């Protein structure tokens, strides 16, 4: 009995130490040092559904994205969809992102946010904008982001270089938009 408790306690301690180490390692994103070359990704998709239906999905920054993005398991925010609201995304694979909403305009169906912390993407100083635009009774959605690679200095390791950053963000946008289309077009 005592032995199994000891093992459980040791395991819990290891998890706590690992968690703390990860928290320390994931420096606040916004004020990080970075290299000279900012990267960008611009992806878009046309959806056969009315714009307000798409905005209902995309525009719920605080809690709505798990409904359509396959990589997002959970989302909660401290101030709903008000500018300044911080949301925490639980990402598949035990990762997370904390993001701040910087612009929210339902009239133009535009929102902008920045990553503040989190280990889900090999990027730093990441900002992003999603715009939803009515196109008759269809909808055009554009998702664009600007960021630096994960490793700020010269000679980055391959998993933190420019290519890795571009591939990761492109993957997030492409799979997200494709599934947004599938969800929105469901009758």
């Amino acid at each position: 009995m005592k032995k199994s408790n000891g093992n459980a306690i040791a395991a819990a301690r290891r998890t706590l130490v690992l968690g703390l180490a990860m928290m320390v390692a994931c420096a606040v994103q916004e004020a990080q040092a970075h290299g000279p070359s900012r990267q960008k990704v611009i992806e878009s998709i046309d959806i056969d559904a009315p714009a307000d239906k798409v905005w209902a999905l995309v525009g719920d920054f605080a809690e709505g994205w798990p409904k359509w993005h396959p990589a997002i398991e959970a989302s909660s925010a401290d101030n709903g969809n008000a500018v300044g609201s911080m949301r925490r995304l639980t990402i598949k694979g035990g990762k997370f992102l904390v993001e701040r909403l910087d612009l929210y305009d339902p009239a133009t169906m535009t929102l902008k946010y920045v990553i503040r912390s989190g280990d889900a993407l090999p990027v730093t100083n990441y900002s992003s904008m999603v715009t939803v635009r009515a196109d008759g009774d269809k909808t055009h959605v554009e998702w664009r982001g600007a960021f630096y690679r994960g490793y700020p200095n010269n000679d980055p390791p391959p998993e933190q270089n420019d290519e890795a950053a571009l591939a990761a963000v492109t993957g997030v946008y492409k799979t997200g938009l494709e599934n947004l289309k599938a969800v929105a077009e469901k009758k």
Partner: protein
Amino acid sequence: MARRSRSRPLVAAALVLLALARAPGAVPYAYITDQGSDDVAVLDLADGTRVATLKVGHAPVGVAVLAQPARVFVTSPESHDVQVIARGATPRTDRVEARLAAGELPVGIAVDAGAARVYVGDMSAGRLLVFDANSLQPAGSVTIGRGPGGIAVDAGAGRVYVADRDDDAVAVVDTRTLARGPDIAVGQHPFGLALDAALRRLYTANVYGNSVSVVDLAAGRRIADIAVGAAPYCLLLHPGLHRLYVSNQHDDSISIIDTQTLQVVATVATGGYPEGMDLAPDGNSLYVVNWMDDTVSEHDARSGKLVRHFAGGRNNRGMGNFLVPK
């Protein structure tokens, strides 16, 4: 009446000057650094035609123009060098004539034509490098602060200023001795820099502070911070209109500050992620390089209003002076 107005000749002179300023001069060329394609796109701003593409180093950012000899200097931080473009009779005969090793991460660059000097900031090593603008030989260097960005040459005072982004300060260097004077504290994360020689001021664009700091050079300290848009980056002074333009990267806009009142008088839409800016020789237009859209937008200098976009190059930045008169 007997008394002749003393102001009449002045009014006449002013009208002549105004007429000259508004005379449609030849629209310049723009030498645009394309960080995403390792080249410089040379655009004829009369109609936006790309008249030349010049391969430079890796991930070019900064640009500076020298009239005599006719050269354009470009920093390529990720190949740690500066390319020297020798300008031909037309851009079609331009060629990259030299590559200058420039420390670890050269970003900001500025020319002092009178002293035939080129100044380059090494963002990683925290140094200011100097080159002879004629011989292209190294002509000294000095350690400054952390993260040097924008550079402004104060030829009259024999000084060069550098925005030390990671120190929230401006470094001051004597151009004759390369001695470093005391830093001037400014706002958070200063990157863009502009000298106002007439008003004896320096302005910094504070990327994290979302502000412009105003430095009184005689007093050697900051006298004001002006709130502008989100992530302000580069600055452009229009001395004739006493206007300072600020590119707000995250707001896709420029803020226009009246330098006499230090008030923001207008905020005007640009393309996506505006960065570098330069002023047409006739003072009627400014050009903004939009990094997200890969465009150069032409704006009316008085209102700031966007007139038209031209196609630029991949991840274009245009940090510095990039206009060359025809």
